[in-house]
């Protein structure tokens, strides 16, 4: 997936300027930045929900605007954290919806579809809950179900909008492990936005850091060397320590 000279935003209000980068298959990409810098806007733009202001997004040489919804669903799967799903769906029903772009008008599953669904359930260790309703699950389990849905969609690109919200530390790390496994062992291109910058530095292959003036796209180590992380947050409260690769609070009660 290539972004060329991309400017994104709403109507006449540009949020992020001049994005030139390429998301590659087989690696885990994270998008970080302060609230309101345009992470969600970027995600909406690259999954075709929002039109870009200038520049282009292309997948395998084809512009995203020229691909129909139906075709796009076979290239990109998206996991939103909006929780607008109907919680009365059972886990199996939710995961099987990932197969929708491939099914006929009535939605009949073939043997092949069933195999892929079973594989997704097994991979995310949710087979034992498959007949439970979603409202009975914990946040951590539910998040896995949503990602299993995206996996069942069998697309080369999986985009996740802040998947780590609502999760505790253990489940956050587990989530990143699952995603990095998907990227490296299943040759997927994973793109996620997150506020877990420290986790992202440890586990992602490429990071996109959105700052007010310009975006940076590089490997985490190069970004540390370029001192980009120091500039994410206003420096009067938090600071980035390049040696421990973590943020430290400044003493706010002198």
């Amino acid at each position: 997936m290539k972004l060329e000279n991309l400017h994104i935003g709403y109507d006449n209000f540009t949020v992020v300027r001049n994005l030139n980068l390429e998301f590659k298959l087989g690696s885990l990409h994270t998008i970080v930045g302060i609230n309101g810098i345009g992470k969600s806007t970027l995600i909406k733009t690259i999954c075709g929900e929002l039109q870009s202001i200038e520049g282009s997004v292309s997948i395998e040489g084809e512009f995203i605007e020229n691909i129909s919804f139906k075709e796009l669903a076979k290239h990109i799967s998206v996991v939103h954290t909006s929780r607008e799903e109907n919680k009365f769906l059972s886990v199996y029903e939710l995961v099987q919806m990932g197969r929708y772009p491939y099914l006929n008008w009535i939605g009949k599953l073939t043997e092949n579809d069933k195999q892929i669904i079973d594989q997704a359930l097994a991979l995310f260790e949710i087979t034992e809950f498959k007949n439970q309703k979603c409202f009975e699950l914990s946040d951590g389990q539910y998040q896995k179900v949503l990602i299993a849905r995206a996996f069942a969609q069998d697309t080369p690109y999986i985009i996740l909008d802040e998947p780590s919200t609502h999760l505790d530390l253990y489940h956050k790390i587990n989530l990143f492990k699952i995603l990095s496994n998907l990227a490296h062992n299943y040759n997927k291109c994973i793109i996620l936005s997150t506020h877990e910058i420290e986790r992202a530095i440890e586990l992602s292959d490429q990071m996109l850091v959105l700052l007010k003036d310009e975006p940076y796209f590089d490997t985490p180590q190069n970004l540390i060397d370029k001192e980009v992380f120091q500039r994410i947050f206003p420096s009067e409260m938090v600071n980035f320590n390049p040696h421990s690769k973590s943020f430290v609070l400044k003493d706010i009660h002198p």
Partner: protein
Amino acid sequence: MGISILSFTVGLTLIKPLNALLLGESNARNLGVSVKNSRILIIIITGLLAGTSTAIVGPIAFLGLAIPHLCRLWFNTVDHKILYPASLISGTLFMLICDTISQLPYSSAVLPINAITSIIGAPIVIWLLIRKKKMHF
């Protein structure tokens, strides 16, 4: 009658988009469903079905409101593949029961059928509204 059968048949094609819409609009779009077109079609088909059945049998209170919700509870699913035929059949059954009650044998009096459907339907709808607050359906 013809129109009603036709719209029922077209309605069958809505099962898949309706199921996808259970995931919310943006997820449905990502699954390759054109939300705008499906929504327009859903409105047209619902309008035609409601209009033709009212034209054939006259207005019946509460039936259309209560039956689909009851089906969701009875069959314990939100899958429209099951709900669509289930609502159709249980709606017919429910209507026949109400009709039997309204013209009970051994009595010459015929009760208005709306009275019967309301007696059964209204409490169900009220109960659903109260439940909805608790369980966000």
